[in-house]
């Protein structure tokens, strides 16, 4: 299984029924594909829809109905369109149950960096800082390393997105829960041993007993 599919399938298991969930652009957006049919959630696109649906049939695209990446979407029954103040009011105000975001780095404190690489890439934070500051649960969905280099570090050296401990880190190699004591290794990926995870991770990992494999 491809790394992205492993991550998306595993994150999908974290989504609880009847919640409001925001999926970031790119890898996080794949999570919606692996949600069981009987789990009803509303997805938020922060540009202004509660109840984001799948891609429209070809030729049925509406230029006024897109996701935050500008891609054409549909809206599910019960959807609502909202302006940016309401959209971010929901995010900051504690009404968003979960956000799934990509990451450049996460560290032992559970802090996330995902919005700029100084001197190289300055896309801007968009909604990421509000999402990490405001969502009830923050899940970081990312590949474990960047061209072999660890992304889970003792301390982020890129600018932080927020000074908030994220809820969970899901990679193709591991499920890691940031806690007060540090990063707890909860599961390993289908093709990774505990030693593989340790050697691909700069941060210290807390390992308690036998670490189960992801069940996908």
């Amino acid at each position: 299984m491809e790394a992205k599919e492993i991550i998306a399938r595993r994150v999908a298991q974290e989504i609880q029924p009847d919640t409001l969930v925001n999926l970031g652009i790119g890898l996080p957006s794949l999570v919606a594909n692996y949600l069981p049919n009987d789990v009803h959630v509303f997805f938020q696109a922060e540009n202004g829809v509660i109840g984001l649906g799948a891609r429209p049939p070809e030729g049925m695209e509406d230029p006024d109905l897109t996701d935050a990446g500008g891609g054409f979407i549909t809206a599910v029954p019960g959807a609502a369109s909202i302006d940016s103040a309401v959209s971010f009011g929901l995010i900051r105000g504690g009404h968003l149950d979960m956000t799934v975001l990509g990451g450049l780095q996460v560290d032992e404190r559970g802090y996330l960096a995902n919005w700029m690489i100084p001197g190289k890439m300055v896309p801007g934070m968009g909604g990421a800082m509000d999402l990490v500051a405001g969502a009830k649960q923050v899940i970081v969905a990312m590949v474990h390393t960047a061209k072999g280099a660890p992304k889970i570090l003792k301390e982020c050296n890129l600018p932080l997105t927020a000074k908030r401990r994220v809820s969970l880190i899901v990679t193709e190699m591991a499920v890691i829960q940031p806690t007060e004591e540090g990063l707890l290794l909860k599961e390993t990926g289908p093709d990774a041993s505990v030693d593989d995870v340790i050697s691909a991770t700069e941060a210290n990992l807390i390992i308690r007993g036998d670490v189960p494999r992801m069940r996908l």
Partner: protein
Amino acid sequence: MKHAIKAEDAAALVPDGARVLIGGFMGVGSPHRLIDAIVARGTKNLTVIANDTAMPGKGIAKLVSAGCVSTVIASHIGLNPETQQKMIAGEIDVDLVPQGTLVERIRAAGVGLGGILTPTGIGTLVEEGKPKITVDGRDYLLETPIHADFALISAYRADYVGNLEYALTAHNFNPIMALAGDTVIAEPHHIVPVGVIPPDSVKTPGILVDHLLERQPDGS
């Protein structure tokens, strides 16, 4: 009763150096004909306040390409490499603001608030130089209002008194910006007689709107 004006006449109202709020999110819900008219006129040194600068060839990106813009205040420029290049080359100043903070700073200007307190940005580069205020044990950043000379917005429908209705994800920043520009110019897809838009559907009351852009002669 409003008067509907031509795009080129609307563009002529916006002088060099103006601060302009422009609605839209990645080009969705932006006032495209108004942007084209400003590009055609060659207005210079605009400060553009918007969520993003869209992607090359679309919406606000056209203003950037045409050299109309000297400062951008936005939350995201990642889909427009040209904005990033011009920023690195020093041709454009870019002030990046978290999206939720940006919309509330604009709203603050429009609704007479002296600023907002937000937890967003605490402990990040965004907090530099800003007062931190503790309320009920939680830290917030004081973020100041963003005022502008003009709000250039897009709407789904306007009626003859300027009431505006928006569609789907084309709302985004438009209804908020309508509060905050000294002069508000709205580009609706349709202009309909008074009464067609029910009062409950009006998101921007017409009293906020100074000018409507007329429909194109071919009806498009």
